[in-house]
């Protein structure tokens, strides 16, 4: 039986084809692919690039948990999550999530679930680099509610 989950942090440029290839399967008729990319503006400021800081061990553990949750909710799906660590220019790919499933509904829903959970729970931070002014770390979601217990 082939693996059904890929969860990684990468300092190499993320590869869309690798994500697609991982989740395709003869029994699957749908693949949904989410790609996060660096945009050139934020709240009226011109952005030149982004640095992504990541706690790799905890991030990969969180990605794996999210993938398992998605499989529990949507059944027989293959799921791929990879997040970039390092600096990217405008248009650079920061995250790829791919989900393969028998029918499109499961793929769409599991992919949306995964990116929303990733943004709330994964130890990843963004530092925006502006055309005018100093770079800034962006605010985010506190992990205080995630303390194990």
């Amino acid at each position: 039986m082939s693996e059904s989950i890929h969860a990684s942090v990468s300092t190499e440029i993320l590869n869309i084809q690798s994500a697609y290839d991982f989740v395709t399967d003869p029994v699957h008729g749908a693949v949904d692919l989410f790609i996060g990319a660096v945009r050139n503006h934020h709240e009226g400021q011109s952005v030149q690039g982004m640095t992504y800081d990541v706690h790799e061990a905890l991030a990969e553990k969180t990605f794996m948990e999210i993938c398992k949750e998605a499989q529990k909710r949507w059944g027989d799906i293959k799921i791929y999550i990879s997040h970039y660590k390092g600096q990217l220019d405008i248009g650079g790919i920061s995250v790829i999530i791919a989900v393969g499933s028998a029918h499109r509904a499961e793929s769409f829903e599991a992919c949306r679930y995964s990116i929303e959970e990733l943004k709330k729970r994964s130890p990843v931070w963004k530092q925006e680099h502006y055309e005018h002014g100093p770079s800034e770390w962006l605010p985010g979601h506190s992990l205080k509610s995630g303390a194990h217990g």
Partner: protein
Amino acid sequence: MSDISIHVKLFGAFRKFGESIDFSMPVGSTIAAVKKALQQKLNGEGLVFDSVLANNSAILRDHDVLDKDTELSILPPVCGG
């Protein structure tokens, strides 16, 4: 009472203070006490209290107790994607 060594790796907005910070705490210190000490070491940085301390496998609770030399990470609010 003897002391233990605490090594804290810094992430995100804490990077302005360097890669990591080291200090000592009494054996049996709680994570809450470590956060308070860390805040003082980081010039009163208030972000510490919106952040969590973690080891390489889990986020730790404020009442967790440290009884040996420990490597931790301080994780500020997250914004991946």
